[in-house]
């Protein structure tokens, strides 16, 4: 048993039952929808149709608005060449295989190209006419060299699960999709270092590592679709960051191709290597603007056999902070996640998904704590002490503790199901922010007050704003501020932007904690980076990509 005798962790185990009787409980915010979970942030509500009304659910593909229409200020750069048949033939020559080129130039391939042209949120849509799927680093090199020589703009694309429109074209950029580069190259069981192609799907890598008793040091909602190369290129954060740190720490080496075709082989398998500028860090979080990552080496920790998850109700955000402090001191090295959800998010899950919440009473704040360790007895003893302490000192009002994987998933669904449920009314304004922990929730209150004062927030159809909610990775001071709305409304947008960015800048926070810049955050970099920093970044971009063909109209 996961939690042995000293501290018994009883809990509802409806999932076992639920799985047996699934038709009865089909609407749980569960793992089925996990890939939509936890990652969120962008500044516009979407799923709009041509009339500008917002619809819930999946709209037919044709209704996804072109990014170039949503962002009329972005103009196609005339320095880039238009793709011709000659270009296409050349690429076919490089790649050989029929299936590696989706050619929309010489024929109509709109339907085939559509999945590469638009994103999963149905918010961004480009005009690309050509998709290339190289299988080797050399092919990537040949493609990029040719593009660079012929001034053809490109968009590197992994699993296309991003939230800021970074992985889809804006105009007619060529999509270079890495999905065919999906081989695990090596794994050293002693050091735990994995070397793999960029196109390996995160979950595939993690499952491979699970068999070896290791774990990929990154976990996020989109794990079943996203690719590790894309994760590194966007410096994805996710659920395990509190425990294992960011990819800047875990990625040991990178193989990348520069726009001129140069293959940068820095696939180091060394933990220590102080020999000059550590250039791989430029590619981590570079969002494909200076080169395409084709392979990575990454240090993977031991997988923890003993995992526990607890879920608490708390009276205030101050208590949540206290709980976090106590969790760190009592659980120290086994604490692997500390997530915060406000009561509004939990009510929305209850309302939208129709699920019973783990706790009977209503609380303004909820926390989810995960521990991962090597010894179940040791962990549960620590947990027991922690739980007794926070209950006795009344930091925590009520709570439950999962005792097996099924329950762990159910409790995680209370956190990961939020994103999906928020979209119920139509659109969501999403912000992914780093804010000093003590001020984290103040922003949510401030934004809610603004909408209330302006008379935009209310319970019936006449109000555009449904609610203002906050949740996030408390352990990382990362707040997801979400504003579910009934319809897209300029008045709403004006109330939040640039207010939120200014608020965050005043607190010296970041306007994009883990989702990156892409198309949506590009105009706002200045709120988090100084002019000097932006100038230096531009210099770097220019020296790696003088022609500017790499993922244009984004990032900087």
């Amino acid at each position, binding site marked *: 048993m996961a939690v042995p*005798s000293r501290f018994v962790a*009883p*809990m509802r185990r409806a999932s*076992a039952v639920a*799985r047996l009787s699934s038709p009865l409980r089909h609407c749980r915010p569960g793992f089925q929808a996990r890939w939509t979970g936890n990652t969120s942030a962008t500044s516009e509500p979407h799923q709009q149709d041509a009339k500008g009304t917002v619809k819930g659910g999946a709209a037919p593909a044709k209704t996804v608005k072109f990014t170039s229409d949503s962002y009329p200020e972005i103009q196609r750069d005339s320095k880039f060449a238009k793709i011709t048949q000659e270009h296409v033939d050349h690429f076919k020559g490089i790649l050989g295989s029929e299936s590696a080129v989706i050619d929309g130039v010489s024929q109509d391939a709109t339907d085939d190209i559509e999945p590469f042209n638009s994103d999963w949120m149905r918010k961004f849509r480009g005009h690309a006419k050509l998709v290339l799927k190289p299988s080797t680093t050399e092919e990537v090199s040949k493609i990029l060299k040719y593009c660079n020589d012929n001034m053809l703009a490109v968009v590197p694309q992994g699993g296309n699960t991003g939230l800021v429109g970074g992985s889809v074209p804006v105009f007619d950029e060529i999509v270079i999709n890495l999905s065919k580069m999906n081989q695990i190259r090596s794994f050293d069981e002693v050091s735990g270092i994995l070397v793999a192609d960029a196109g390996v799907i995160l979950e595939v890598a993690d499952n491979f590592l699970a068999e070896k008793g290791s774990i990929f040091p990154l976990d996020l909602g989109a794990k079943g679709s996203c690719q590790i190369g894309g994760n590194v290129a966007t410096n994805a954060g996710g659920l395990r960051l509190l425990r294992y740190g960011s990819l800047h720490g875990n990625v040991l080496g990178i193989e990348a191709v520069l726009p001129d075709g140069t293959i940068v082989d820095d696939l180091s398998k060394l933990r220590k290597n102080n020999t000059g500028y550590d250039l791989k860090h430029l590619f981590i979080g570079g969002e494909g603007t200076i080169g395409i990552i084709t392979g990575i080496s990454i240090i993977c920790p031991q997988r923890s056999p003993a995992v526990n998850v607890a879920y608490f109700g708390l009276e205030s955000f101050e208590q949540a902070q206290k709980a976090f402090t106590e969790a760190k001191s009592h659980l120290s090295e086994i604490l692997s996640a500390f997530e915060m959800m406000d009561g509004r998010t939990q009510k929305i899950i209850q309302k939208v998904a129709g699920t*019973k919440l783990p706790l009977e009473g209503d609380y303004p704040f909820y926390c989810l704590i995960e521990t991962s360790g090597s010894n179940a007895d040791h962990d549960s003893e620590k947990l027991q002490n922690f739980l007794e302490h926070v209950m006795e000192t009344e930091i925590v009002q009520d709570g439950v*503790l999962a005792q*097996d994987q*099924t329950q762990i998933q159910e409790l995680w669904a209370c956190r990961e199901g939020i994103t999906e449920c928020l979209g119920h009314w139509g659109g969501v304004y999403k912000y992914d922010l780093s804010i000093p922990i003590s001020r984290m929730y103040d922003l949510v209150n401030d934004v809610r007050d603004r909408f209330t004062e302006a008379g935009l927030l209310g319970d019936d159809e006449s109000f555009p704003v449904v609610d203002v909610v906050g949740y996030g990775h408390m352990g990382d001071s990362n707040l997801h501020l979400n504003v579910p709305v009934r319809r897209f409304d300029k008045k709403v947008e004006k109330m939040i932007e640039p207010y939120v960015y200014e608020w965050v800048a005043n607190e010296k926070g970041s306007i994009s904690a883990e989702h990156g810049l892409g198309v949506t955050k590009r105009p706002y970099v200045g709120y988090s980076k100084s002019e000097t920093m932006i100038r230096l970044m531009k210099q770097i971009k220019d020296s790696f990509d003088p022609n500017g063909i790499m993922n244009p109209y984004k990032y900087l």
Partner: protein
Amino acid sequence: MSGLRILVPIKRVIDYTPQVKPRVNRAQTAVETANVKHSMNPFDELSIEEAVRLRERKATPVEEIVAISAGPAKAQDILRTAMAMGADRSIHVQVDEKDALEPLGVAKLLKKVVDEQKSNLVILGKQSIDDDAGQTGQMLAGLLNWPQATQASKVEVEGEKVTVTREVDGGVETLRTKLPMVITTDLRLNEPRYASLPNIMKAKKKPLEKKTLKDYGLDAAPRLKTVKVTDPPQRQGGVKVEDVDGMIGKLKELGAL
């Protein structure tokens, strides 16, 4: 009649989750249980929940809810769970994993416990998800010579009268009988509650009595012999094809076209 004295037998089984894949041991005599996650049999959670709900409904006073489990020391974990969900006390009958009881053995034991505890209602899962025998409830009713209602999807108690609804092929069947009786639970009976932290703490102080088969004067020598335990046949892996032509070729090769 003064009130309900409910006995809820529960079993510790390998956790029901896709993450836990049961493995057959080398000797092909059983499923490997060492270092595998365990928890309460889900049908037994329904039994506990129903007992607690009967108390909460207040239609008929519930004097006592007693949970019982026969198994290794770790079975005490699920007894604590049961008490955190609302059972008043529990009995652990120590049985080593290698000497696991068969349904008849369990039923004999439960009969003794029913006599000892003066229970007048036994609510138990219709089956355990590990052995899937689905016999214990019926055998117990036979040994006690009590009426039984199996696979209950609704239970109503009014005084001595008990009405049980069961979902059967093509409809529902309603049974009415009198206490004492045996009820086995089915999935749609209720949705078990989460046990809260305060209740988990209270449960630690609730009495847990430790017994052995000897205390009940039982000899539970097995009557059945497991000949062999094997894995289901392995699924054949799929084949990836490069393109549509490749797929058509493959389908032709397999005679599917």
